[in-house]
């Protein structure tokens, strides 16, 4: 996958580029907004990671310009600014996701994966399947093999999100943002408790577990280890 990184903090940029390359991505980098915009408009990228504050052309302006030129590359904002309304500004200008510095690299990687997945032409799915676990989005029914699983509405949304990102690491923050729509850090890790309840429903009593904890990162649902 081709990723554009626009970041003026050179050490942070180097770290980001190396990390992404190690994860198997092709990465271009730019250290200011102008160069970033030129690159974004001249080459096709799967995702652009854009720092919020950039010399020459501000991150917000960069994305606005991209959108005005009809460029729909998913953009992940990185911001070191205070948060209360900056997230809203970022998303309003055309950004697709927003991550506050300092971030864990796994968090960034998981979000980039999610953005790429979102971009692949999503045929309107009415059924999601991972291994023998099936989720019918129309009837809101969940089955593992022949066993029906009774899910609360929020558990259903949680499982749906995990299954839509099957094979990808999903972080606790991503779950909190996407499933609960909260943009804050609960002091106690409430997400873990929700996950363990869900796990008890879909994995308990079955031979192969589907819902895995990825240490230091988050969770992943997948059919095989």
């Amino acid at each position, binding site marked *: 996958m081709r990723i554009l990184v626009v970041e003026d903090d050179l050490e942070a940029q180097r770290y980001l580029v190396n990390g992404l390359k190690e994860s198997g991505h092709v990465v271009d980098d730019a250290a200011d907004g102008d160069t970033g915009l030129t690159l974004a408009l001249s080459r096709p990228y799967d995702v652009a990671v854009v720092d919020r504050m950039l010399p020459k052309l501000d991150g917000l302006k960069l994305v606005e310009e991209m959108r005005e030129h009809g460029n729909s590359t998913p953009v992940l904002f990185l911001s070191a600014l*205070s948060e*209360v309304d900056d997230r809203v500004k970022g998303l309003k200008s055309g950004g697709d996701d927003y991550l506050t510095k300092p971030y864990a690299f796994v968090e960034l990687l998981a979000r980039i994966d999610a953005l790429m997945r979102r971009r692949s032409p999503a045929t309107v799915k009415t059924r999601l399947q991972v291994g023998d676990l099936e989720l019918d989005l129309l009837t809101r029914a969940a089955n593992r093999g022949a066993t029906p699983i009774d899910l609360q509405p*929020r558990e259903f949304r949680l499982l749906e999100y995990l299954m839509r990102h099957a094979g990808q690491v999903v972080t606790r923050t991503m779950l909190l943002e996407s499933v609960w729509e909260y943009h804050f850090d*609960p002091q106690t890790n409430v997400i873990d408790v929700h996950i363990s309840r869900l796990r008890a429903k879909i994995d308990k009593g079955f031979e192969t577990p589907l819902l895995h904890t990825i240490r230091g990162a988050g969770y992943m649902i997948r059919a095989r280890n």
Partner: protein
Amino acid sequence: MRATNFRIPRLLRSQAFRILLIYLVLFAVSAVALIAFSYWNTRRALDAQTDQTIEAEITGLSEQYQRLGLRGLVDVIISRSIHGDHGLYLLTDAVHRPLAGNLDGWPQVQSHSGHFIEFDYERRYGSETERRRARGRAFALTGGFQLLVARDVHERYETVRLFTTTLPWTVALMVLLGFIGGVFVSRNMLSRLDSINRTSEDIIQGNLSRRVPTTRSNDEFDVLANNLNRMLDRNERLMKGMREVTDSVAHDLRSPLNRLRNRLETALSHSEGDNADQIQSAIEETDHLITTFNALLLIAEAEAGAAREAMKPMTLAPVVEGVAELYAPLAEEKGIRLAVKPGGPAPIEGNKSLVSQALANLVDNAIKYTPEGGEVTLAASETPGGVELCVADTGSGIPAEDRSRVMERFVRLEASRNSPGTGLGLSLVAAVARLHDAVFTLDDNKPGLRATLRFPLRRPRAAPAE
């Protein structure tokens, strides 16, 4: 026109209008008193003049009578009756049978004043007769004859009558005109005050760029508006500066923290065993530092009122439902019953994200300090004075003397020193409360703690301030 927004009761309650009304009443009373005084004076002077003339005539006539006898008096009366302009005369015998004069008969007395009487008589003009008012004096002559000498005072009488019938109307008209003038003047003053009020409201809501409009008249209101605007300019500059400081503190601390965390992560990927564990715990410490820093920054932002721009009408009920749902499994795992007390939609003006976070902090705390078998109750309710958001638990509670202290930054009570947390949870709740003009209180739940946020009633934004 904005002025059409005014409701009359509000106008009547305005200070300008009250002052005007008082002046109006005072003016009306003194005008009536003045008019009445000059009326009585004029009337007395006119009456005195008439009375003197009559007295003089009576003196003259009684002299004639003494000198010339009845015959002579009758002659004089007849001649005066014909030539006299305003004089009225009647000479009768003892039983009021007319002997001479230009009155048909002894008149019906309308009013007395001293020796003088007032009466109506009929005067003929060709074929028509007119009822007119006269003032005169009856005088008994020797021999039982009665002499009535009077003057026609009809003009004066008519003037007085006209005067007394028009006076109430004049006063009424004066009061009416004064009232209308008062309405206009106070409306004008009110609209000026209202524009100042509306601007202040807007600014309180977070629209810092608003200014009080001024007119070209350069009156006291304009001076006030200019002073306010200068103050607002200063305030805006300070707020902007504060915002920039928060932003640059955020940026200047987050960037190195970011690099630090990056380096630690890189180091972790190249190390093994004991070394890796050390680095892992360094990353965890960094994350804790970041969490604390973020919380502090959020508190600073809430205190600076920067988030006011993101305030919108919202209801608390779904926020309560959402947070309760988020924490329900955690509570259940700890053996605590988490209940939501049913209530109304509880509308407020607020920042949903911050209110959710404040509520989550309260619920988090409640679950943390409530023992197994306990209960945590969430409630959002509308009360006449505002909207209440309440989290009550049956845990250990907070001693009364510590309750205000725990809202301060980094204050953690001895009992909780060893449990995880930044010590900023309640400070954030307090900051969010201040941002929303809400009152945050901690009370004894007997047993346990009851944390309450009392939000003010949501005001319609555009309405003029009461």
